[in-house]
């Protein structure tokens, strides 16, 4: 039986040596509480003797108190974790369980099967080598079975075992099992799952869980544990091309410069040629350094430190790759994106993208389509909501080295991070680079930004006015420009209303369009700063994230945020363009401050209280501040 241990002391030594060479298999279990998933995991833990006496006595007490199995042990209670969940009787997050037999250690990602928890299943599946999909023999292949199978295939798990559970409730019927198996295989083939094994089990009674069952003489395949002990483990890319993202540059002293990381593909030896990407420099591996001594060979999965024979520039986030079949380098991709945040994905908003050891700025375009995980239908959408999966194009702000996710999970899987909350809001699987990024190169221009500016005798910058409609942005910006012009400075005023009649006339007032509106204004003002101008931008620009993006695009020292502050009631009272009246008459929707949010700056460079300050005073204050910042010629 699995999990049996050598009990005689003299065999412990031999037993331990054998156990030192065990392998490690990670698998995910998919199914709902009703399918008996927790019971199955509890059973595996119990039968591999990993349930200790004190846990067991707690289990006996709990089983009587809240269990669902009468006087029998309710194994499900062994694995339900957080107090709130225990009260609700459901598992609501990813939990990791561990058990071990004589040949393998197992890490089980236990994830819920409820509709709203795609996010958790994707998380659990991301590290799994195999998947156990539970099907209730009485119910057969359900919508949720299809959903789980699709997610498992999307995340690149190739080995699937379908545990057809509760066979005791259908009298261990071979016909029922055969019917479920046939319908599953038909579906699995459609989504590219070919390595499928079906096993008839009863988690409750223990049939075919850890050993063959007398109740199913017609079944000749492995028990579930037998399968898990023998299924081959695809260490991501043992024979593939060498890949190692550099996590740290290790410099204990001036003589030693090593690059530390974990090998995520292939293997490496001293003397091997390597490419450093995305910069595409070349060198040769000098040493493979570990605390246990230098290695003459290192393989996928090992954490090592490499020294190179040349002094070339390598930093955190770079990828060391073999000379043959190097990864691609690009800054535009198509990817599957799984959304994991309560706040919807905003196309065009700047997120952080982390892949390997590299974090870059990224924007996600409007999805080409989203995928209904129940029917696998493609649907049109302008955004991604929590638990939605879409195929989207991504733009990142610098090129990165990558492999398609299907070839290497660690080189093609990424997470998206919100720039304000820093929460992980999405996960992505990168498929291929978009062609245009190969073909458009940055044209080197010889007359530099500095040359432009010097000719004009000024320090270019962006003065960004934000505030409600009617707060006085345009009035003040206009006055500032007149004064600067009078002082002999080269300026330009970008006004939101004016741009919307030309460059931005294709944009409306939805959140997505507003973000694009600001992105274009920021890009244009950035170009004008390059041209040596002092640029005044007068845009409502309601979202902090986009104003921050504009600041980063231009450069902090050259960006001055002016908060033109008027309470919404005051702005509505002024209503210079009659827009608030239109809103109140219901003729205008998505109006900032009324039915569309405004996020005031938390820390503006200049804060103008327009109730107490006249436009003339405000303009003078801004001029003084710009002079203090060194943007203007001294008078």
């Amino acid at each position: 039986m699995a999990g049996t241990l050598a009990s005689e002391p003299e065999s412990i030594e031999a037993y331990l040596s054998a156990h030192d060479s065990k392998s490690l298999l990670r698998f995910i279990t998919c199914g709902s509480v009703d399918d008996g998933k927790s019971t199955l995991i509890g059973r595996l833990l119990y039968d591999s003797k990993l349930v200790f006496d004190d846990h067991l006595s707690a289990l006996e007490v709990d089983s009587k108190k809240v269990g669902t199995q009468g006087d029998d042990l309710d194994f499900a209670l062994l694995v339900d974790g957080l107090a709130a969940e225990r009260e609700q009787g459901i598992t609501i997050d990813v939990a990791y369980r561990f058990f071990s037999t004589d040949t393998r250690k197992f890490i089980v990602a236990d994830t819920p099967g409820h509709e709203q928890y795609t996010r958790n299943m994707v998380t659990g599946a991301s590290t799994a080598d195999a998947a156990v999909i539970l099907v209730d023999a009485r119910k057969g292949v359900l919508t949720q079975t299809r959903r789980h199978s699709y997610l498992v295939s999307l995340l690149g798990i190739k080995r699937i075992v379908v545990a057809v559970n509760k066979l005791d409730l259908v009298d261990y019927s071979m016909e029922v099992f055969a019917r479920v198996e046939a319908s599953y295989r038909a579906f699995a083939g459609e989504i590219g799952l070919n390595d499928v094994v079906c096993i008839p089990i009863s988690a409750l009674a223990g049939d075919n869980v850890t050993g063959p069952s007398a109740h199913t003489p017609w079944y000749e395949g492995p028990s579930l544990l037998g399968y898990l002990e023998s299924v081959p483990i695809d260490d991501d890319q043992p024979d593939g091309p060498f890949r190692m993202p550099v996590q740290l540059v290790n410099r204990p002293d001036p003589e030693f410069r090593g690059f530390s990381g974990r090998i995520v593909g292939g293997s490496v030896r001293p003397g091997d040629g390597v490419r450093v990407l995305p910069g595409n420099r070349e060198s040769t591996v000098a040493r493979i350094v570990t605390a246990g001594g230098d290695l003459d060979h290192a393989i996928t999965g090992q954490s090592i430190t490499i020294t190179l024979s040349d002094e070339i520039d390598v930093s955190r986030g770079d990828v060391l790759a073999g000379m043959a079949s190097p990864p691609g380098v690009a800054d535009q991709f198509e990817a599957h994106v799984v959304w994991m945040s309560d706040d919807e994905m905003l196309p065009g908003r700047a997120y952080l993208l982390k892949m390997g050891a590299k974090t870059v700025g990224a924007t996600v375009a409007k999805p080409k389509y989203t995928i209904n995980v129940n029917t696998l239908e493609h649907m049109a959408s302008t955004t991604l909501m929590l638990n939605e999966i879409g195929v989207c194009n991504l733009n990142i702000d610098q090129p990165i080295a990558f492999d398609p996710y299907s070839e290497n999970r660690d080189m093609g899987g990424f997470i998206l991070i919100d720039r304000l909350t820093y929460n992980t809001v999405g996960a992505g699987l990168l498929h291929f680079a978009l062609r245009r990024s190969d073909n458009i190169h940055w044209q080197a221009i010889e007359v530099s930004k500095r040359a432009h500016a010097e000719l004009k005798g000024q320090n270019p910058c962006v003065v960004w006015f934000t505030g409600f409609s009617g707060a006085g942005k345009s009035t003040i910006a206009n006055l500032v420009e007149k004064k600067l012009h009078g002082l002999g400075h080269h300026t330009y005023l970008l006004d939101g209303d004016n741009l919307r009649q030309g460059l931005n006339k294709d944009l409306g007032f939805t959140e997505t369009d507003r973000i694009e509106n600001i992105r274009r204004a920021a890009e244009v003002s950035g170009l004008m700063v390059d041209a040596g101008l002092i640029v005044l931008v007068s845009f409502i620009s309601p979202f902090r994230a986009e104003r921050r993006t504009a600041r980063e695009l231009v450069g902090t020292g050259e960006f001055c945020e002016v908060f033109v502050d008027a309470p919404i009631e005051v702005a509505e009272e002024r209503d210079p363009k009659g827009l608030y009246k239109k809103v109140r008459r219901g003729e205008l929707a998505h109006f900032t401050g009324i039915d569309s949010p405004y996020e005031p700056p938390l820390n503006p460079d200049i804060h103008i209280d327009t109730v107490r300050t006249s436009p003339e005073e405000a303009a003078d204050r801004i001029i003084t501040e710009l002079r203090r910042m060194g943007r203007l010629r001294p008078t």
Partner: protein
Amino acid sequence: MLTHLQRLEAESIHILREAVAESERPVMLYSVGKDSSVMLHLAMKAFYPSKPPFPLLHVDTTWKFKEMYELRDRLAAELNLDLIVYQNPECIELGINPFTHGSTVHTDMWKTQGLKKALDEHGFDLAFGGARRDEEKSRAKERVFSIRSPQHRWDPKRQRPELWHLYNARKRVGESVRVFPLSNWTELDVWQYIRLEEIPIVPLYLAADRPVVERDGLLIMVDDDRMPLMGEVPKIKRVRFRTLGCYPLTGAIESEADTLTDIIGEMLRATTSERQGRAIDHDASGSMEKKKQEGYF
């Protein structure tokens, strides 16, 4: 193909390096127990030939076993590590101890409050801890990188999803990160690794004749004369400890296992899980989760 211990080791080293790369002032919580010993050993490997680029922080209660202090000071000197010992000054002033104040107050004041103060005073933004997911049910869902509020609270509803080997260590001003490099290790893995790598551990884990008294079902070792004896006469028993904490709160088990091989053999046949020896986990189920929300590591 790597063995399970090689894979666990490589993944833990990856986690240690990632955490250091993404933080400004990391620190390693060092409790002198076996998990801390393994974590420190992994840190020595992760940054070799450099030293670990962070100090060790021992949140001391003054009530640890003598042998723990000895190992701590010896290792810090031998490995030439920067060791910070923090004893909550409020506890010193109030004379907090497990006998007068009980285990709950003692643990909260010395450990939970002490830890928060130590982290705040030194401005650490990331702390490594040796917790494992297999220790307790509520820990099975803990992330490897876990965000704490400026008040050091853990919000089980605000956990970030962790995919592949990608860890998000970003935090807002005032927040900090707890990182658990041993998340996927089991007690058995830890012992096997200690044996394989010959990692120094406190001798209390090995059976020896020690003076003990029996209290509330626990065998408590009389480690020094601060322990008030209520007419009890310490008996010499052959005992060892599966887990180490404050000596008045840590139960010993009777055992003949005086080598690592014996310990593992005994553990494989064991029928009592590890945390049972700790008095603090004995209250109502779900208590560890409550402690974590309040800032217990």
